[in-house]
């Protein structure tokens, strides 16, 4: 591999429309998302079109269209209550568990509409896994935490294969070296950062295509956060990742594209480099530079 190739880290996600010549900031309430929210069919793994979410009468997500590309990390940022977590939870139908929540629009993974009546949410949530803000290991051993998913989804034909999946997942989550001598110790006995990596191992053990992360580092110290961020970068080679974060620096460090949400609308989407050096909408700029409020 040449040094030139080594520097080509970004996935080549062809966008449908080329970026305009840079101009003065757009301001005011956005009626249309600024930037390239949609990708071409080959690049997109998940496509979301005209997504609206209502909690009873409250219109929480307003007409959002966004594609999430293969092998990319998309960061969803925005102030509290802007709808970024709600949108993330739509991507594996976690909102189905909220009785008053009603979702409209189309959300597809590899062309399959995940809100189709025929879709079983259990395998869907294996295909689109999720890591939460607070590490939530099962009150079981480290081994069992990871083995649980493959076992209930019938992914292993025998004990040996199950062990292979567990070991492989722990290695990919960067946890193997720290736990290989205590696989039968309780998962809850690990440190916060280790527990979060255990949860990531548990998620990838069922072979997902997409991993959703909802503020996965907000309860972790800077060292544990750095390990998770490093892991996210490695996981990108095999998975598509959407991450909600309140840390601007984290969004800038881990993602290739960033989407800024504001009051239930998607204000701007763009290459992370562009968003953090030269955003195109005033609201985005005000938020990321700490002028919001």
């Amino acid at each position, binding site marked *: 591999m040449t040094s030139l190739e080594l520097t080509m880290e970004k996935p080549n996600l062809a966008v449908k429309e080329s970026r305009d010549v*840079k101009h*003065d900031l757009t301001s005011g309430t956005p009626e249309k998302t600024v930037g390239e929210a949609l990708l071409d069919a080959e690049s997109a793994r998940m496509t979301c079109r005209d997504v609206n979410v209502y909690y009873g009468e409250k219109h929480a997500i307003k007409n959002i269209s966004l594609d999430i590309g293969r092998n990319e990390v998309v960061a969803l940022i925005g102030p509290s209550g802007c709808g970024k977590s709600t949108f993330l939870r739509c991507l594996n139908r976690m909102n189905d568990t909220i009785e008053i929540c009603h979702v409209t629009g189309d959300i597809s993974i590899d062309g399959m509409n995940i809100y189709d009546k025929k879709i079983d949410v259990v395998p869907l949530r294996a295909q689109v896994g999720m890591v939460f803000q607070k590490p939530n290991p099962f009150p079981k051993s480290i081994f069992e935490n990871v083995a649980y998913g493959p076992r209930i989804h019938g992914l292993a034909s025998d004990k040996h294969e199950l062990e292979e999946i567990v070991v492989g997942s722990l290695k990919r989550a960067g946890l193997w070296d720290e736990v290989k001598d205590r696989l039968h110790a309780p998962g809850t006995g690990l440190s916060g950062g280790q527990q979060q990596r255990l949860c990531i191992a548990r998620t990838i053990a069922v072979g997902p295509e997409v991993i959703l992360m909802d503020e996965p580092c907000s309860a972790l110290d800077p060292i544990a956060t750095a390990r998770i961020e490093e892991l996210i970068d490695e996981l990108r080679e095999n998975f598509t990742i959407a991450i909600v974060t309140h840390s*601007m*620096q984290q969004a*800038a460090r881990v993602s290739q594209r960033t989407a800024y949400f504001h009051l239930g609308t998607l204000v701007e989407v763009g290459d992370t480099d562009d*968003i*953090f*050096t*030269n*955003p195109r909408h005033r609201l*985005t*700029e*005000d938020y*990321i*530079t*700490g*002028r*919001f*409020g």
Partner: protein
Amino acid sequence: MAREIEGHTMRRFDGELHHLHNLLLQMGGLVQNQFELALQALREKELQLADKVIARDRDLNDLEVKADEEVISVIARRTPVARDLRTVMSFSKVITDLERMGDEVVRIADLTYSLYENDGPGPGTQMMRDVHGMGRMCGEMVQAALRMLDSLDVESADELRAHQLELDSEFQSSVRRLATFIMEDARNVGNSIKVVLVLKSLDRIGDHATNIVEHVYFLAKGKDIRHIPPSVHRA
């Protein structure tokens, strides 16, 4: 101006950017004053004034160090992004340009010494005519660039950049004219070379003023125009 720098929820960040901006304006004010004194020393063959210019360059260097420290501190403490990042990066480059303008001014003061020391006759009025003309043009450019640095209003950026093209062409013409003095009389070689060096310093000061305009433009508009020719061409 306020809009570019102010408005952070953390007001202290506003204060830090203002402090940095003020340091730049202080540097700019000093450079402008030094420039005027250096031209006056040259015009009036006043070597004491040239001395003063050379000595005061230390103040400019001190301000440069202070401003650079402030840039590092803001980056370390605030991890600026977007407009704030462009502000800090642009300011950092402006600091370098101001310091180099100061160096060119000192070079003019040194050349003044060299032209008029030992009560020598120095170059004649004809030979110095272009220096005064270019000095005026250059002074206007420096003033306009510093005004832009102060207001962060880049409306007239292209017009100012077009001035630099004029200054370049004026420099080329001046060098051609000076060559005729050498051809007329070989004894003019020494003074002609020194006058060319003064003209070159003026040309470089104009370049740095243009750089400042381009850095401020990037800060305000997020567009790098350094290698894009100005759209305004003056008659």
